[in-house]
C-alpha cells in the first residue's frame, strides 16, 4: 500500500537511522535528567518519531520547519547535529546555540530549523513568514510547522491557517496530537476535528496514524508536493502518543495505569517500521540491529562529550543580543 515502501534502500536506512537516533537521544536525556544532570525544562519526543521523520524525509536544507517545546525530534529529523544539541541541552558553550537557548530553543538556521519554541502555537506565523520568503524569492522551498493539540486552539495557529490560504503560501501544518495538552485531554479541550477545522479554511487535510512512518510519509509527501507546486497549504493531523510526561519530572497521574506500556507493545513506531521493511524483504534484521548499535555508541559519545564540554563564561553573557548596537 504505502508508497513509502518504494523508498530507496538508502532512504529507508536513513529514515530508520533518524528515528532510532531520536529514540536513543531522548531515552538518554531522560536518564540524565532523572539523575539531576540536566538543568531547566525538558520535553521529550520519544514515541512520536514517525511523525517528524515521516515529514522531514521530504525536505532539504532549503525547506524550513518551525517546532515546539518538544523539539528534539524535529531537530534530528531535519538534520541538526546531535552533538551540538546535547551540548546545548547541558548549557555548554559549544552547544548549537552557545548554551543561551537550551532544550526549548534549539535552532539551526543553516539546516532550515527555525527553532524549538517555548510559546505554544507561536511557530504558525513564523512558518507563514518563512513560506512568504520562499514564495517571494522563488526558492522552491516549503515551510512546515509542527504544533500540538494544545496549540491547535491558539489564535496564532488558527490565524495562520487563514493567512496561509489567502496568500497561497507553501506551508504544511502538522498537528501532532498526542492526546494531551500538558495534563489535559485533547478529546476534552479540542472542539470539533482538526481536519474539519482546516476544511473550514478550504485547506485540504488528512488524519494519519502517527505510529506508522509509511502512512505519515505518504500523505506528507502529497502535501509537500502540493505546496512546492504552488498549490498552497495543507494540514496533516497526526495521531500519536508520547512515552514520557509533558515535561521531565511529570508523574503523569492523569494517564491510566499501563497506558504507555500498551502503546509501546502494540504500536511502537520503530517496531512497526522494522516489521514492515523486514516482511517486505527490503531490509534485514541484522542491518537494523547494526544501526541500533552504532546509534547507541554515537549517543553515548555525544553524552560524554557534552558532559566534558566547557560552560559559557561571563564574556558570553552580553554577546549575541544585537547584530550592532
Amino acid at each position: 500500500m504505502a508508497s513509502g515502501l518504494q523508498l530507496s534502500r538508502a532512504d529507508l536506512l536513513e529514515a530508520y537511522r533518524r528515528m532510532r537516533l531520536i529514540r536513543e537521544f531522548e531515552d538518554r536525556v531522560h536518564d540524565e535528567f532523572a539523575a539531576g544532570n540536566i538543568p531547566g525544562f525538558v520535553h521529550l519526543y520519544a514515541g512520536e518519531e514517525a511523525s517528524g521523520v515521516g515529514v522531514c524525509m521530504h525536505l532539504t536544507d532549503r525547506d524550513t520547519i518551525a517546532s515546539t517545546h518538544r523539539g528534539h525530534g524535529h531537530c534530528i529529523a531535519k538534520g541538526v547535529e546531535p552533538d551540538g544539541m546535547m551540548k546545548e541541552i547541558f548549557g555548554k558553550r559549544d552547544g548549537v546555540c552557545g548554551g543561551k537557548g537550551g532544550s526549548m530553543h534549539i535552532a539551526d538556521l543553516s539546516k532550515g530549523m527555525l527553532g524549538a519554541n517555548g510559546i505554544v502555537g507561536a511557530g504558525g506565523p513564523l512558518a507563514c513568514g518563512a513560506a512568504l520568503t520562499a514564495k517571494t524569492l522563488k526558492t522552491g522551498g516549503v515551510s512546515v510547522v509542527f504544533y500540538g493539540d494544545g496549540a491547535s486552539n491558539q489564535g496564532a495557529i488558527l490565524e495562520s491557517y487563514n493567512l496561509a490560504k489567502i496568500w497561497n503560501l507553501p506551508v504544511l501544518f502538522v498537528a501532532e496530537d498526542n492526546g494531551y495538552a500538558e495534563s489535559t485531554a485533547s478529546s476534552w479541550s479540542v472542539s470539533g476535528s482538526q481536519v474539519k477545522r482546516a476544511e473550514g479554511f478550504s485547506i485540504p487535510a488528512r488524519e494519519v496514524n502517527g505510529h506508522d512512518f509509511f502512512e505519515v510519509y505518504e500523505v506528507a509527501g502529497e502535501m509537500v508536493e502540493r505546496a512546492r507546486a504552488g498549490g498552497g497549504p495543507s494540514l496533516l493531523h497526526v495521531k500519536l502518543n508520547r512515552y514520557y510526561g509533558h515535561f521531565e519530572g511529570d508523574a503523569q497521574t492523569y494517564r491510566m495505569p499501563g497506558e504507555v506500556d500498551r502503546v509501546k507493545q502494540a504500536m511502537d513506531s520503530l517496531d512497526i517500521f522494522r516489521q514492515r521493511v523486514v516482511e517486505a524483504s527490503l531490509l534485514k534484521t541484522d542491518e537494523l540491529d547494526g544501526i541500533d548499535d552504532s546509534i547507541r555508541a554515537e549517543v553515548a559519545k555525544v553524552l560524554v562529550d557534552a558532559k566534558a564540554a566547557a560552560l559559557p563564561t561571563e564574556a558570553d553573557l552580553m554577546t549575541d543580543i544585537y547584530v550592532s548596537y
Partner: protein
Amino acid sequence: MPKKSYRTAINEALRQEMERDERVIIMGEDIAGGMGTQADNDAWGGPLGVTKGLKPLFGPDRVLDTHLAEISFIGAAAGAAATGLRPVAELMFVDFMGVCFDQIFNQAAKFRYMFGGKAVTPLTIRTMYGAGFRAASQHSQCLYPMFTHIPGLKVVLPSNPYEAKGLLIQAIRDDDPVIFFEHKALYDMEGEVPDEAYAIPFGQANVSREGDDVTIVAFGRMVNLANAAADALGKAGISCTVVDPRTTSPLDTETILETVEETGRLVVVDESHPRCSMATDIVSLVTENIFGALKAAPKTVTSPHAPVPFSSALEDLYIPSQAKIEAAVRAVMEGGQRKAAE
C-alpha cells in the same frame, strides 16, 4: 532643500529602499487597501495614506495587504525576516501590540540571543502612536517604553520629517528588529527633506537648541513642544538645551549626560505614562551617573497615570503641553536658586 511632510518623507523612504533592495517588502492591514475588491486596489495606502502609491509601483507581491489579524501577519513578518526578506510591517496603531506582542518580544527580539548569535532578523515594524486625535484609550497610547524595555529590539521616535526619512531608511537597512514610532499628529508637519536617500544612525541624539540653564530631553512629538518652550523661555531670559535622542534603544546616554553636566538642570518630556517611562529612565540615568553636577532635582513632564480620555476637554488636559514644559523649566530654575540660597 525641498520641504516635505512627515507622511511624504516616510513614503519616500519606503519607495527608495524598495527600489534599492528587492528583498524589502511592505505588509499590513490596508497598506494598499482594496485587495479583493472590484474597485481601486490602492484605495487607502494605510489608514492615513502614508503608503499610498507604492502598490502601483511595486505590485501585489511586494506591497501585501494582510488580513485583519495581527498575531499572524506580524509573526509572518518576523519569520520572513529570519529567512531572507527585509519586511516592513505596519502595525496600524501601537495599541494593537496587545494582540501580537508575543511575536515581537518572545520571537523576533530573542532569536539572535536564543540561537547563539546565528539569527539575523532585519524586521521593521512601523506603528502609529500618540494622543491628540480624540481617538480615546485604545488608539492613542505611546507604549514605546514597553518596547525599550526589551533587549533585542531597537526603538525609533522621529520628531520631524527629516528624521522620519533618515531613521526609516536606517531601520530598513538595519539587521536587527526595529520598532518605528510615527506620531499620528505629525503626518502633516512640513520640513526640509533631501530628495536623495540618507540614513541617520541610531543612538545619536540631535541637539536642537543649545543653552546654559536647563537641559530638556524630549521624545518624538514632544521635541517640537520642547523647542517651542525653549524659544519662549529664551525671550524670558532662561536659556535651554533641547536633546532629541531620536532612538530610545539604543540611547545616546553620552549626549544626555554631557549636556546636563553643562547646565546642571534637567527636565524630561515624555508623552507616555509617568511610571517606568522614558522620563523616569532618563532621570535615573542622570542621577546615578552625575548626581553631583545637578543644581536642582530633575523634573518630568508626562501624561498622567490614566488611560487616554476621549472628550476633547479631558484629552487637552491629558497631553503634556508647552505651558507645562515651561512651568517645569521654571520650577527647576527656582529649585536651583533655593539650593544656592541655603
